[in-house]
């Protein structure tokens, strides 16, 4: 501790008090930093144990012809799995299927969620009820959602085909038609998971100050203008978050095609995570599956960074 009396003699009272105060602040910072680390430690341990270590171990596995039952017999093959992946038509097919799913699902998941959020934010009657209704699918598990939509899309006796039969002669067979299968999965996914984006964007919209709109109204701004110049810019960060998180989620689609179509028809809904699962658990090629996982990881990082820069470039 600083000897305040001695400091007063040598530095003068004003400087001594400044030094003393600075020392108190530094001590507080040190203590807070130690407590912070202590509080974060459980998460850090979990992160290292369940995320970082598997992540690095996966990278290690991807460099081997990995024998999961007898790891000591695994053979180091360097980038062999990655080279094989580049020449594997099944990988490219699964990647394309995944990209197609992303194209079909991400725009509606963001745009409809935004429209719903803006709609519910207006002073409509029963706002709470609407919020509950829109959110309720999200609490279901993927298995339940998939089974509901399998029933709805069923070819023989499905409700959607039944309705469509009133307006068209031969309604599509959604889950067995190559053109429709992925779209059907995207529809089920949008119904199920739009609620998450909706809640985030609704909260974001409610954080935009009403004063901005009042000022704009006084200046005679139209609704469109307010949307363009106030709502969207003010919601930019949540929107970027929603877009990135939706991209990542859609790239990782697994449960819906696994249950609804089993990857068919003719592998049209066999996504990259399904391919990872198949090579790992059906083919027992865990090194190869780890390489697939890493390529997906790189794709997701790249897409997220691109999204971030594109969406925030005007900031």
């Amino acid at each position, binding site marked *: 501790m600083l000897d305040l009396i001695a400091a007063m003699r040598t530095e003068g009272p004003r400087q001594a008090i400044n030094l003393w105060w600075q020392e108190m602040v530094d001590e507080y910072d040190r203590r807070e930093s130690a407590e912070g680390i202590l509080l974060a430690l459980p998460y850090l341990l979990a992160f290292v144990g369940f995320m970082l270590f598997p992540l690095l171990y996966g990278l290690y596995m991807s460099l081997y012809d990995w024998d999961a*039952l007898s790891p000591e017999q695994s053979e180091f093959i360097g980038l062999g799995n990655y080279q094989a992946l580049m020449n594997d038509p099944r990988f490219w097919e699964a990647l394309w299927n995944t990209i197609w799913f992303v194209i079909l699902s991400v725009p509606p998941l963001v745009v409809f969620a935004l429209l719903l959020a803006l709609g519910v934010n207006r002073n409509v009657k029963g706002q709470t009820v609407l919020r509950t209704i829109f959110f309720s699918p999200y609490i*279901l598990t993927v298995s339940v959602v998939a089974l509901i939509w399998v029933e709805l899309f069923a070819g*023989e*006796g499905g409700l959607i085909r*039944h309705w469509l*039969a009133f307006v068209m002669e031969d309604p599509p067979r959604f889950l067995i038609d190559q053109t429709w299968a992925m779209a059907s999965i995207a529809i089920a996914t949008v119904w199920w998971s739009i609620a998450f984006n909706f809640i985030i964007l609704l909260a974001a919209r409610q954080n935009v100050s009403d004063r901005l709109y009042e000022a704009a109204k006084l200046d005679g701004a139209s609704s469109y203008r307010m949307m363009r110049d106030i709502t969207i810019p003010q919601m930019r960060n949540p929107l970027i978050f929603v877009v990135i998180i939706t991209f990542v989620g859609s790239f990782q689609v697994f449960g819906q095609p696994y249950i609804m179509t*089993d990857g068919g*028809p003719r*592998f049209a809904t066999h996504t990259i995570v399904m391919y990872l699962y198949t090579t790992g658990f059906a083919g027992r090629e865990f090194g190869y599956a780890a390489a697939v996982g890493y390529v997906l990881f790189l794709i997701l990082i790249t897409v997220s960074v691109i999204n971030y820069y594109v969406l925030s470039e005007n900031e």
Partner: protein
Amino acid sequence: MQGNSRADENSNRQRATRPVSGRSNNRRRFLQGVGVAGAVGLAGCVGSLPGFGGGGDNESQAGEEDLEGGVEVDEGDADIILRLDSLLTGGDGDPFEAMVEDFNEQSDNVAVEVTRVPWDEYYDQLFTAMTADEAPDIAFSHSSQIVPFLDNLTPLDDYVNYDPYVEQIVDSVEYDGQHYGAPLDTHMAAVYYNKEIYEEAGLDPEEPPTNWEEFAEANDAIVDAGYYAFDYGTGMHICRSWGGWLRSRGHEVIQGEEGNWEPNFNNEGGVEVTQALREAVEREWTPTEDDNSWPSFVEGDFGAVVDGTWAWSRFREGGGEELDFDWGTYDLSLAPGKEEDWTMCDSHNLVVPAADHSEEELEGIGQFFEYMTQERAVDWSAEAGHLAATTEALGSDDLREREAWDYSLHTFQEIADNGELYYWPATQNTDEYSEAIYQSLEAVRFGQQDAQAALDEAEQRCQEVFE
């Protein structure tokens, strides 16, 4: 139903059986679906897709999974307590566990406790447990699934007497002169048919078809009577018919050896049996999709479906899907232009994941395996519907006196007796190459590809898998 006239009954059936758009059942089916889904959601988990089509696996099609069950053993009940993870979660789970309880009662020093594992997760869980050295003492493996585990299974020749088993069945677990499993049964597919509909169509229900021409004639008659005649399913289920038919035309699905497999179905015989799948749809024997086929059959509104031995445990009294009409089974070996009779099958085998088992434990395991697969072979057949794996049980009068005999076992016994058992080739990646095949076969069923194009594609995909 009994109060109705035959004409009324027929009329009701026809409305429910071959709807143009299936409208009559839609809302009910939807509500049932939502109800089931909701119930499953409340339970917090879901097993495999129940029903006929399913996701392409085997016994999941026997019905909904039931994970409540198993056998508990208290410490101190025996000197040696063995842990067994069971994949039998359909109608065959209860009889299996009853037999285990009997074993525990009669054994002095060995007891086996059983835990049920969802069928569709079974091999993933077993594999994961083995990688973590947490495998159970005893596990199940189908003959078609055993290859990836071979290096980590204990050969059983020193602990199990293999003489009593049917040679063709026991061959499916023999690799390099050693046996890695004790076969509990063999289970194959057959045609389960509604004898009342056959009779109504003017057919003799006691003389079912034995070749393609008779089969076609019967199916046409059933269609004329207003019913769908036959469904071979989708997913892996499709391969039960197709694989046996292909073999009946003289071709194995794949040929070669581990590390050097080649598809062997893209040939004249393969094209013809694949075309037969489409022909069934075009001649309206089979609906384009199989969503309604199984429930319609159970309700008595569908001529016949292809299913496995396990269907008995669902159809029997108390099995959950009791059939209230007269039904029977006949051999599925009906390939157009068949040269031989072959029926696709698989076996449940009890296996021992490699671990530091003592000699006493291994001997206890051997006692248990012989009790379950040999001493109780007739009971297993009679209760679960699968065909016993021992020669003695197959020839026994006891088996012939059981209720299941007249319905299904006699058909399966004949198949085994005639040496018609065709095991789907087991490789390191059986599921992968099987999927490559059945996705193409589905495309033929749905009318999206002709047989030749489908087999070209399946062949290419299989080659990619094997590479």
